[in-house]
């Protein structure tokens, strides 16, 4: 038993490690490509060498990030085949489609136009070069679309039918992949990339100001990055609100874990800051928080856009009080009953298998009917107690607050940066503003990663919501190989990260000493 849980835990740590490192590179690609495309458009419109120099400077940093980050996501696909082979087979027909489209269309589109963007200066017309830059941005954004659609499907599986003979879920409606969860998740991730890149551009430009180098270039960059970043952050907040509504409908347990809410109610407040009680469980009488500052009505507004709405807590959901897809409060199936029905679905699958081996078509049909009836609870059949179906509340709760608090800080950050940049004496006079902008940069990455922690830890114990828990998705492999590759990846990715940061810092320093007001610097 210990070995199985060790394999599950190490595989989860390994997947988390690779996903976290991968996401260090991705949002900067998504946002910086847009900022570069906007700058190049301004160059073509104004014919000003200043914009050309700015375009090339930021394009170089984009190139460093792209070169070092490219293919880090493929490691996740290796892990599907080795560590998560049960999962890969069980849902491969659905999950594989968007990933294949991503690899065949979007990634090749992005890679092709990246080549034109970097090597095409002077070799293709300025207009075609600009088109290539925009298509690089579009390719990266479409690439992210397919990955996020696949991820969203795991959070809200739809558009498939389970085939017990093939032992896999088969897609029956491709368009069901584009659920509300998928649309919000995609937009939320893309726009957060714009915001992250805006912070990056402002932070790097602030360093120019601190060093008193290329001040007009830095001011120009802060204006461009600031407006795109601000727009990105506001859109991230808007789609984050949409995501909360979707999570309430389809993953109420995740919402309850995000809030550390065990006992819900009408007109539910939201905890702005607090400490969850580690001794609290769904079935004891302990307090939910050791300390909390609650905003009245906040959670009801966040979840349903209605200050009086009912929001269920963990204990409510376990007992079967939840919300339906329209957001209405309903009495649904309790978790104990779900576990019972899940085990019945396993029995039906066993019966189907035996009937198939005996060539008993009547028995197969009967077993399949029962399986269809209980299949929505298939994943619960792996649990022995309802405790197993509850996500880790602490990590989800704190990650959510880190994301929201830092997100709010960065709204202020963009407003102050833009205000300061349009009052030039502020930026050049106040060194603390420049230092604050530089120091803020890594916090934007923490904010972005915290968002993923909420999404992925909050949906535990599921790899595929209600159908496949992580402990069943795992391959029959030894923990030793997973532990070895975990540390190998930790080493490789750390080396890549150190390389990225050091190459970027060297380039920023080197370029800052040249004249970035003309194209002669390149």
């Amino acid at each position, binding site marked *: 038993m210990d070995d199985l849980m060790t394999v599950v835990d190490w595989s989860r740590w390994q997947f988390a490690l690779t996903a976290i490192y991968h996401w260090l590179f991705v949002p900067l690609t998504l946002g910086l490509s847009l900022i570069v495309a906007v700058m190049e458009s301004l160059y073509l419109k104004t014919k000003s060498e200043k914009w050309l120099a700015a375009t090339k400077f930021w394009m170089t940093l984009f190139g460093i990030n792209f070169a070092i980050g490219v*293919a880090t996501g493929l490691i996740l696909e290796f892990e599907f085949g080795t560590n998560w082979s049960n999962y890969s087979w069980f849902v491969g027909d659905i999950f594989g489609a968007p990933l294949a489209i991503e690899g065949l269309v979007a990634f090749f589109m992005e890679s092709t136009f990246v080549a034109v963007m970097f090597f095409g200066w002077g070799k293709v017309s300025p207009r075609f070069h600009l088109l290539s830059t925009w298509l690089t941005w579009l390719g990266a954004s479409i690439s992210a679309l397919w990955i996020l659609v696949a991820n969203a499907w795991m959070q809200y599986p739809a558009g498939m039918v389970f085939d017990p003979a*093939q*032992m896999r879920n088969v897609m029956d409606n491709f368009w069901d992949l584009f659920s509300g969860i998928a649309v919000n998740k995609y937009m939320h991730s893309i726009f957060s990339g714009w915001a992250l890149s805006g912070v990056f551009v402002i932070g790097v430009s602030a360093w120019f100001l601190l060093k008193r180098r290329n001040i007009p270039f830095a001011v120009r960059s802060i204006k461009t990055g600031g407006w795109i970043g601000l727009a990105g952050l506001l859109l991230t907040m808007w789609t984050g609100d949409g995501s909360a509504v979707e999570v309430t409908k389809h993953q109420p347990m995740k919402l309850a874990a995000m809030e550390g809410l065990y006992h819900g109610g009408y007109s539910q407040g939201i905890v702005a800051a607090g400490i969850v009680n580690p001794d609290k469980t769904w079935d004891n009488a302990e307090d939910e928080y050791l300390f909390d500052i609650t905003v009245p009505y906040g959670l009801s507004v966040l979840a349903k856009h209605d200050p009086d709405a009912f929001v269920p807590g963990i204990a409510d959901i376990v007992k079967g009080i939840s919300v339906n897809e329209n957001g209405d409060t309903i009495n649904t199936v309790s978790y104990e009953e779900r576990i019972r029905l899940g085990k019945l679905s396993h029995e039906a699958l066993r019966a189907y*298998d035996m009937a198939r081996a005996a060539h008993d078509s009547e028995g197969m049909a009967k077993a399949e009917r029962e399986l269809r009836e209980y299949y929505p609870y298939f994943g619960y059949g792996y649990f022995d107690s309802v405790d197993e179906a509850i996500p880790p509340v602490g990590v989800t709760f704190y990650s959510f607050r880190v994301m929201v608090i830092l997100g709010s800080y960065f709204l202020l950050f963009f407003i102050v940066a833009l205000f300061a940049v349009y009052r030039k004496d502020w930026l050049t006079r106040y060194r603390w503003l420049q230092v604050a902008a530089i120091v803020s940069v890594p916090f934007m990455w923490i904010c972005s990663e915290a968002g993923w922690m909420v999404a992925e830890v909050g949906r535990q114990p599921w790899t595929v919501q209600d159908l496949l828990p992580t402990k069943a998705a795992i391959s029959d492999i030894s923990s030793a190989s997973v532990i070895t590759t975990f540390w190998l990846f930790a080493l490789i990715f750390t080396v890549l990260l150190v*390389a990225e940061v050091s190459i970027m810092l060297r380039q920023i320093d080197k370029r800052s000493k040249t004249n970035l007001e003309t194209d002669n610097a390149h």
Partner: protein
Amino acid sequence: MTIGKTLWLIIIAKLFLFFVVMKFLFFPDILKEKFDSDSQRADHVRHELLRERPSPPQEKTVFNLKINT
């Protein structure tokens, strides 16, 4: 060394490490390697998904903040 050459070297070294070393030595596609047909793969996954699986002891799980309390 120019920035371009440095990045190309990193890309090539990384791809070699990922696709040659990691993929071949550490990340076999288990179902493809162990079985010859899809029906065998389906049977294996069926066996895997229907076998008894232990429940994790809650206090030991590494993703829970409450460890060994």
